[in-house]
């Protein structure tokens, strides 16, 4: 059963991998703004979408790739849980 902590852990792992690859040392908390702070750009956002779809067997629609659903680890987690219901 996929729970919130599993989702958070995987998302955090993905983001750390992406940002360390760019040479950034940012400590990402569960409520760190990602899109609104311009930390996560559109390319990384699409990679995140693919990652979430592959790991949690959900499907995004184009209009769902936005700040409302992907702006922090907490928000992403709630969105994925909503998709899984």
């Amino acid at each position, binding site marked *: 059963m996929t729970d919130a902590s599993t989702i958070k852990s995987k998302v955090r792992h993905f983001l750390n991998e992406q940002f360390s690859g760019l040479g950034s040392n940012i400590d990402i908390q569960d409520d760190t703004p990602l899109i609104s702070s*311009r930390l996560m750009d559109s390319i990384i956002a699409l990679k995140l979408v693919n990652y979430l779809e592959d790991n949690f067997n959900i499907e995004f629609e184009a209009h769902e790739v936005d700040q409302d659903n992907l702006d922090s680890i907490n928000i992403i987690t709630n969105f994925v849980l909503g998709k899984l219901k």
Partner: protein
Amino acid sequence: MSSDSNSTFINPALQHHEQKSLRAFIPALLMIVLLTGAAYSMDFEPGSSLNTILPILPAVFAFHYWLPKNTAVYFLSFSGIVSSYLILDVYNATALLLCASVFAGLIQTQIIRPKVKLILGILLLFLIALFRTGLLSSPFISYAAPVAGSLLMFRGILMLYEQHYYQPASTFQQKFAYILLLPNFAFPLFPIIDYKLFLNNYNPSNIHAIQKGIRRILLGILQLLLYRTIYLHVLPLQSELVHSSDAMLYLLSSYLLVLHLTGLIWMATGYMGIIGFDLPPAFNGVFLVENFRAIWRRINIYWREFMMKIFYYPIYFRFRKKLKHAVLISAGITLTISTIMHGWQWFWLQGVFTIQTTTLLYWLILGSCITYSLSRQEQDKNTPDNNSSIRSFFSQTLSVFLMYLVMSVLWSLWSSSSISEWIYFMKKLVPDSSFDFLMTVALLVTLYLILLSGKKIFERKSVFEKRNAIPLYFFAALVLFAVSNPYTQRILPNYIQRPASDILQPILNADDRNEVTENYYSRMLSTEGKGRKPWEAILKRGEARSGLDNACIIRNDLVVRELIPSRTTQLDGWTIITNSAGMRDREYAKEKSADKLRIAVLGGSYEMGSGVNQEYVFEHVLEKMLQDSIPSKPTEILNFAVGGYHLPQQVWVLENKAASFQPDVVLCFIHPSDARRNSNYLAQLIKNGTDLIYPELYDIKTRSGADQNMSMNELKNRLSPYNKEITEWSMKRMEAFCSKLSIELTYIYLPALFTYEDDYDQYVSIQNQSNEKSSFPYIIKLDQVYAGTPAKFGLKNDPSHPNAEGHRKIATALYQKLSPYIRNYKRPNKTTS
């Protein structure tokens, strides 16, 4: 990561809950007043509505700050409605508001399906487009079409999108307010704020957004001043590029002209900030990027996110499971759509849908580089973004330097009217001597050092974003207000006032001044429909000079145009009445009276009296002054001037028109930079395949290698080395002609409004030989004619031409200079022509 969006003026926990207070309000209002006053005085966008809405912005902020949030959104609509009536007349403003209401209502209604809404929205825009092209017209609503089309074009797409996907749905009031947001009228083409951001982000008492907004307005103004400095004092004239070092300086400095766009966007987002919208920054350090990925992150993010949301993501999601290279294909399609959208913007500006090959190539190359750079992102594991070693810093600066060069070359492509013109100028970058090579290298080294310093400053800019920088911003606002305000300017010392005055006013450089003048007259000759007027002509500016085509006969030789005889032409606020000889003057008998001194005036739009009625033209005023004050020497002045005439045309007028009236004296008027405009004029004639009439001009054409098939910029560049020769030929030919007929010839050097350029000395040196028998001087300079306050003497809607008071000043100055010669004049025994 943008440090701008992470900076905090106050405790972030308070930013959405801070109580409104006078302590926060008064300093903010004061700074907004100072900055708005400075921006108004500096008039950054003379062709737009910016200066119309600037004076009301402090009041909008003040009311908006104190209103309750649920009332504030209605106030946003109200301020937009007021702006409509300030910028447009009653009919056009009402038409605009009607369009906005219908559009907002159409999107809002639940009884129409989304696809039908889209079709109806497109039909409405199509109807507005018919007005823009002139295919539909109305005497009452000529201005509403381009304004409505610009406002609704992209905003409509965003509202439709969010109406479909965003929950909860927004209200009609919010939609109406979004279309009529105050900054939209100064920046109508592209929405500064995304519709969803407008709905989510709005907080009228967000002091953090207000203070950030003030900082952005200040930085926007500073960018615009830097743009003007580069434009006027660094950028060489394109028409005068000779050596590779000139071309390199032109290449490197013309890219910096992007500061014009960045400055305006920063001002716009700043004004959004003061009414409660905390927006992300655009063009943040865009000149200091190291690679195309960084360009992508820092360019116009509003445009980027609009294209991503509306086009790229839907296209990508449709193809991602079907095509292997969905990312690249989606990027390619989105890029094509982006180019078409830019062409669509131009339609509202110019009335013509156009996509140039160079623009297409620019976006293709830039888009490909960005796509490639982004696709390589995950392989870039060792990007030393925060490696602090000195070697790494110099290496990063080298990357910045190379990116700057690449973007400069791409920008030069975008700015060129054709690929052949671009290639012509690229070839000029090849040094033609070792000295030239060294100068070019020196320029590049200077650029590297400037970028190195810029990078260092940019990395430390967070220092200026903290709370204790507020006094610094206040001081900067005060200084800007003081130096820009005409009343406080007077107390500044001359060594600050004079150089600062150039960049504090909307002055065109010589190339653009000539372009505006030539474009005005070539538009007049255009066979395109009358509905196709450039934006600035639509929005009231330049109306005084439009319609002149109705008063002229067009010729296919170097004369180009002549005033139609015995014609009354009503223009916007002034009338041209011509006599039977085609002069803008009263009737004169062809045969001269023996007792009268007859003076012929040759000149252009100043002398013709563009923008004022006949009784105010200085020639008419001077004639009356002379008649009243020297009754013993009755004088009549015949005005042969026609707007847009250059010296070669004056030669023709003298020989073919003025001479037949047997003048005793000819006054030929010349202005600063007239000599430089000769090449533009000749370039236009050659481009049009016009008869140059005189063998000397044909000879210049041959020697310059100018050809009709070349672009205008190349023609101007080839002909500009001959400016002096054209001037000399014109003046000496007139001198010889007048000497043969015993006519006194005097050149009058008349300063132009809004330029301090003074090339008087080059005309003085042209005199063929001194004529001791002349009663009149060879040349007279009317300096100080506007007495240091030129702004007072320009027409309201065309400040480059004198108003009635300005003409009176010119007449007075001429009277003072000429009356002693007129009093002493004795007619010689003349040979008949």
